[in-house]
């Protein structure tokens, strides 16, 4: 059943006419053209599809769009762009924290949500916060370093 719903995605309000059972991930990728959130498993097990829903990191692969009307979504495209990288994206680049890169969108989102709650974390706290995100290339050590660095950079900016 289609119903008209509104969704704020990366600061832009969209009126959507899609089946209410469509997963948020399909709506983002195929209706809004935001390809940064990735399909990994469709089972809420890998984290490649993570987006912020009202600031909270959440899987988008199985989340039905009908439950989200009026909510605010942030995807990796909403974090920053090539010309204006978010400190997390910049830190990942500085640390070369990635190999194939497929998991990175979800990890950046999870890290963003975490640093918003805990701006001065330890390595172990970051690892615990990212445990829902799988990386198969083994970029974990660099990702942990990058998130620590981003946290420091962001604190410095605030100070």
């Amino acid at each position, binding site marked *: 059943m289609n119903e008209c719903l509104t969704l704020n995605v990366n600061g832009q309000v969209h009126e959507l006419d899609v*089946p209410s*059972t*469509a*997963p948020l991930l*399909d709506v983002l*990728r*195929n209706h809004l*053209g*935001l*390809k*940064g*959130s*990735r*399909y*990994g*498993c*469709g*089972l809420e*097990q*890998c984290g*490649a599809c993570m987006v912020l829903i009202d600031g909270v990191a959440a899987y988008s692969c199985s989340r039905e769009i009908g439950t989200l009307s009026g909510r605010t979504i942030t*995807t*990796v*495209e909403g974090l*920053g*762009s*090539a010309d204006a*990288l978010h400190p997390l*994206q910049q830190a*990942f*680049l500085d640390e*070369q924290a*990635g*190999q*194939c*890169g*497929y*998991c*990175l*969108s979800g990890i*950046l989102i999870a890290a963003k949500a975490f640093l918003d709650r805990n701006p001065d974390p330890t390595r*172990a706290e*970051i*690892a*615990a916060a*990212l*445990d829902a*995100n*799988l*990386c*198969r*290339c*083994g*970029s*974990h*050590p*660099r*990702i*942990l370093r990058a998130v620590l660095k981003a946290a420091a950079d962001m604190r410095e900016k605030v100070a």
Partner: protein
Amino acid sequence: MLTFSLKDNPRLDRWLRFEDDHTVRIGTGKVELGQGVLTALAQIAAEELDLRIDQVRMMSGNSVEGPGEGYTASSWSIEHSGAAIRLVAAEVRALALARAALRLNAAPDELTVADGAFLKNGSPSGIDYWSIAGELDLSAEATGTVPPKPLSAHRLVGRSVPRLDLPAKLTGSGFIQDMMLPGMLHARTLRQPGPGAMLLQLDEEMIRRRAGGDIRIVRLDNFVAFAGADETAVRAAAVAATERAIWDNALSLAPEQATPDWVASQPSDDRLMGDPPPEPAMDRVCARFTRPFLSHGSIAPSCAVALYRDGVLTVWSHAQGMHPLRENIARTVGFSLDAVACHHVQGAGCYGHNGADDAALDAALVALALPDQPIRLMWRREEEFGYEPLSSAMTVTVHAGLDGAGQPVDWTTEIWSATHGQRPGVGGASLLAAHAMKTPPPDRKPFDIPLERGGGAARNGIPLYDIGPKRIELHLIHDVPVRTSSLRGLGATLNVFAIEGLLDDLAGRAGEDPVAYRLAILSDPRARRVLEKAAAMANWSSRDAGGAGSGLGIGLARYKNSSAYAAVAAAVEVDEAVRVTNIWCAVDAGLAINPDGILNQIEGNIVQAISWALIEEVRFGPQGIATLDWESYPVIRFSEIPEIRVELVEANEYPPIGVGECAGGPTAAAIGNAVAHALGTRIHDMPMTRDRIMKALMA
């Protein structure tokens, strides 16, 4: 002298072309899998041509215009493609310089090149590569006679140039999964449950109802796919079809068939490699090691895009070789090579032969059935886990003949394994959906990758120590009920685990320290250097007697006995489970093209090997492979990542050698030895789980 890849692709313009936008297009048959190879190859080209890195555009995996270099596999890329690009770039630079000298009425040695512009006695000459490019005949064949730059002249090679592909991947693009073509349809398949399974019944009306949107159903013998503009509907159709289709002769597996013991008990094709068998009277010590079937576990299900238009089938794929893919697809669909074009687009890491090639044929079959419409076909998660080739379960028994002082003087590595080489077109292997066609491909004969090409199951079966006679007895098991093929490291992971495990046991019998024991039988100076380095990094000299729940272990190998040397030390704590707390690794990669890229690869290989050593195991059930998601096939997570320190030993005087797989075997071995040190007893089987710790302690 012409290198391996240049002999196959002698024309200069397959490798190098000057573009109108003042860049140079560098062709390679090797593809980016997340290992950073395109950045390293661009560095090599920019180095020889005296260009900035941003003046090089890599054209990778183009079956029409680029060089064919087989598969991007076995850590050959820098050794093969890098060597070819280096020679071609040096030769084209020399040709261009000679031409410029004529134009400028100068002697060639008065000219130099900077950022692609010619300088005469150090001053701008007003001309550059692009102003004379039209006068160069790059359709000529390479001679390989122009020597590349000496080491001392390198400006870019040896520098940690940032990965060229990472910025896009950090801002939400860069993958084949993101491709959008006008009029594109999404597609999913209903997989034939095993070769020989026949589709008896498919309720198309039910499938359309469950899809909830407009879908097309493509059916070719036992191959079925669903296509449509709405990906959600197409996915729902495939899920419904998979649940409800009725098959005859579907594959069914028994749980015990997933065990190394079951594999080793099957009839085998036996081969002896290396030195003749030992005298039977010799006093021998042996130990038996195993590992289970492993999944590649790519984080993304495989994906491909295909379009059939005007008699040409174009396929975009993230598989590891576009020239082989073109041949395999053309052969399967009965087209001439000219009518098929394959282009590489990056996907998620694959770590070997996963579903990528097969998804490309799937997309091609749908495109042929629905001409003029681009088809984006993606596998489902359970399809990737259930239908990609596995890495074979293996058993290795290592036998060492000892002298009076307890040192090994004769060595046999005895291996039971299914093949590690079943890439399409290799050893008679085919793409998956070919088995669903009316005339399936003929049965394969027993085949594994020969030792001179690095070996499959036998890879690293010959220890690099000074032992005297050394040999491999390979029992190649042909009749396993699942498809097996290459996973990063191939047989090396278990072979190194076994060899290094027995060496530690032998050191213990002789009452010697494991590092000292190894050094006493190791004359290769490069191997000694990484071993000593890793031991020093781990503060090995302060290692305690062990047995109290914490352990320190070492592992060493030269990958394929021809690529990079890696020594790894691992510190573990063992109670109910094994926790790796620290890894120290020293690597000799020869000339390091991009040191940080090498470190990134090695770190990743270490992390993956920890996951293999402690966690991963494919299981079978009545419906086939039973580990179809990340809960039933867990892999290592962030909170399990140890502190990892990797250092490269300086070895720039040696040619560059492949590094991406060098640390896996040594890491697994170091963990195995550290666990033995911690427990005072050895666990011989991967993964080293809670159950196995308990069993080892009870024994």
